[in-house]
């Protein structure tokens, strides 16, 4: 079957409560959903979350890139074989977007939609191409930025729902007091990670991390801004806290440079940031081969579509240090699928076993939550 049409939805779904970190403050999702359909009318849905401070994409540039660069490359083409996930990277070759590190959110959205469509066309679940190695996925909680009292309140909530892994946003003047208060609220058994979103200098990172190391910090994510990988390597040697890279890891070339420089203990692999499942798998496999740990991360405000993709990735990787995302209606006032993707007590969530990505997207909700809708056909 050939790809016959696509629809692009730029979504704006309000959050139940605001979410902030050192790089941004967010009250609603800013994601783009792609719906593709084949000649038989089978549909597939994908999603990307453009972030100027991550891949350099915005909603506008992502929509434009999908319409002008990516869709014309696949419109009217035969769907790739459903069972050949790695082939998707070749089906959707890397493209260039001026002003961006890589158009990975756009690539991810289209890749997921095509994969979902190809699997649904033959009534296969994601497990057919990405066999799970575990029966459930365990998610981390995230303590957002804001006053320390609010961070402590969030930490208590995490404890109330039994989460065993928690990440706290840092990168502020009061980092040591903030993390100390959160550790006290969580208790000693919970694994605690930090995420600075690139807010520290090397000197500040060394100071803060060495002060906090006695509290038992499982890792620090993106302590320095994206930049020379040698700085991260220097930090690694100056602190006992394992270093995780996020904004520094967007492309496979980034992964190679980080490995070469021995600049990271852990990679944060996010489906949207890394350009889809096939590219995320490639980066995760490379990390595993080099003894680097992997976190399956997420973008704040992802809908059920990216959450489902992340769930499948986390379920399939042999070794996953931490998993984030799947907040669903814990964060969004409305999600886009019939099925709930939210994690439950202890952060646990089951596998999604239905055809394709395993969720049924409600198109009417997309339309209701969209700030723009654009139909694309094979005529371009």
């Amino acid at each position: 079957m050939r790809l016959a049409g696509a629809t692009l939805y730029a979504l704006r779904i309000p959050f139940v409560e605001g979410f902030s970190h050192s790089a941004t403050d967010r009250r609603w999702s800013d994601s783009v959903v792609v719906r593709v359909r084949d000649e038989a009318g089978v549909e597939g849905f994908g999603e990307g979350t453009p972030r100027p401070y991550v891949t350099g994409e915005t909603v506008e540039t992502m929509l434009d890139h999908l319409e002008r660069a990516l869709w014309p490359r696949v419109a009217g083409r035969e769907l790739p074989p459903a069972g050949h996930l790695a082939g998707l990277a070749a089906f959707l070759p890397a493209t260039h977007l001026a002003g961006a590190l890589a158009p990975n959110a756009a690539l991810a959205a289209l890749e997921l939609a095509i994969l979902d469509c190809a699997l649904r066309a033959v009534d296969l679940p994601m497990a057919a191409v990405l066999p799970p190695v575990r029966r459930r996925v365990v998610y981390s909680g995230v303590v957002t930025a804001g006053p320390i009292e609010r961070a402590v309140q969030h930490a208590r909530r995490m404890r109330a729902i039994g989460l065993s892994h928690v990440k706290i946003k840092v990168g502020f003047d009061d980092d040591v007091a903030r993390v100390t208060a959160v550790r006290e609220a969580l208790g000693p058994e919970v694994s605690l990670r930090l995420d600075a979103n690139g807010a520290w200098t090397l000197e500040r990172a060394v100071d803060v991390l060495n002060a906090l190391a006695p509290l038992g910090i499982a890792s620090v994510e993106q302590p320095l801004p994206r930049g020379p990988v040698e700085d991260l390597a220097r930090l690694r040697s100056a602190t006992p806290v394992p270093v995780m890279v996020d904004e520094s890891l967007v492309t496979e070339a980034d992964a190679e440079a980080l490995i070469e420089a021995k600049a990271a203990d852990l990679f944060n692999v996010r489906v949207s940031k890394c350009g889809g499942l096939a590219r995320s798998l490639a980066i995760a496999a490379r990390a595993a081969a080099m003894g680097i740990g992997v976190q399956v991360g997420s973008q704040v405000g992802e809908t059920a579509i990216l959450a489902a993709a992340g769930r499948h990735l986390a379920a399939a990787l042999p070794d996953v240090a931490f998993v984030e995302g799947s907040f669903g209606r814990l964060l969004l006032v409305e999600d886009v699928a019939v099925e709930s993707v939210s994690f439950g007590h202890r952060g646990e969530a089951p596998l999604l076993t239905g055809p394709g990505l395993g969720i049924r997207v409600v198109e009417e909700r997309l339309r209701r939550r969209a700030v723009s809708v654009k139909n694309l056909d094979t005529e371009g």
Partner: protein
Amino acid sequence: MDTTRIRELFERQVEAFTASREFAALESGRADYDAFVENVARAHLKSPQLVAFLYALAPPAAAPTLLGNLLEELGLEADSERPHPALLEDLLRAAGLGHRLPTIQAEAEDDIRRVVTDPLLYGTLREVGLAALTEIVAFEFMLSRVSGRIGRALAAHRGLPAPALEWFTHHSEVDVRHAEQGLADLGAYCAYYAFADDEALTIVEMTLRENVFARRYFRDFVAGAR
């Protein structure tokens, strides 16, 4: 348990609800009244089932009042009373929305289905019950203070007659005693199931982390928007 802090949280929620631009629109003739009436009906059509669930979990000190609430919801407390869902159906019909009733019924049923099938955040019914009781009592608290204003707005700007607004009259300001009893029930629940104050407050705060009234009555409500 001292419920002062819970009362403060309820008061803050009511204040945010009535200060929202959506509520201002409701009182000034600029709202989508049909959507509002549908949302209210959807939010409360299945209340008897929720109260029955809470009655099943009720500690001895709160069981009599929760049973009273349940009988009232079912219209069984006095001969002259009608079931509360029937009052909401009257409201819909009077607003010319009787044809929408099957859809709204289905939506309300789906809301229950989702609550039951979504993964539970808490490890035991003890915490789930506290979250559910918090939300029910929060609505009683808000309605005892605001339902009169809502009823007057619907009468003035949607032209609904008094008999159609009985559901609001029933929950109006005269029902403050009911809301106070609800707060006492919350305290009794926390005491009976041995919640530490911090633990109970965390669950109450989590339940109220979004404005539950605006979320149900104005479905596109964005917190903080003006």
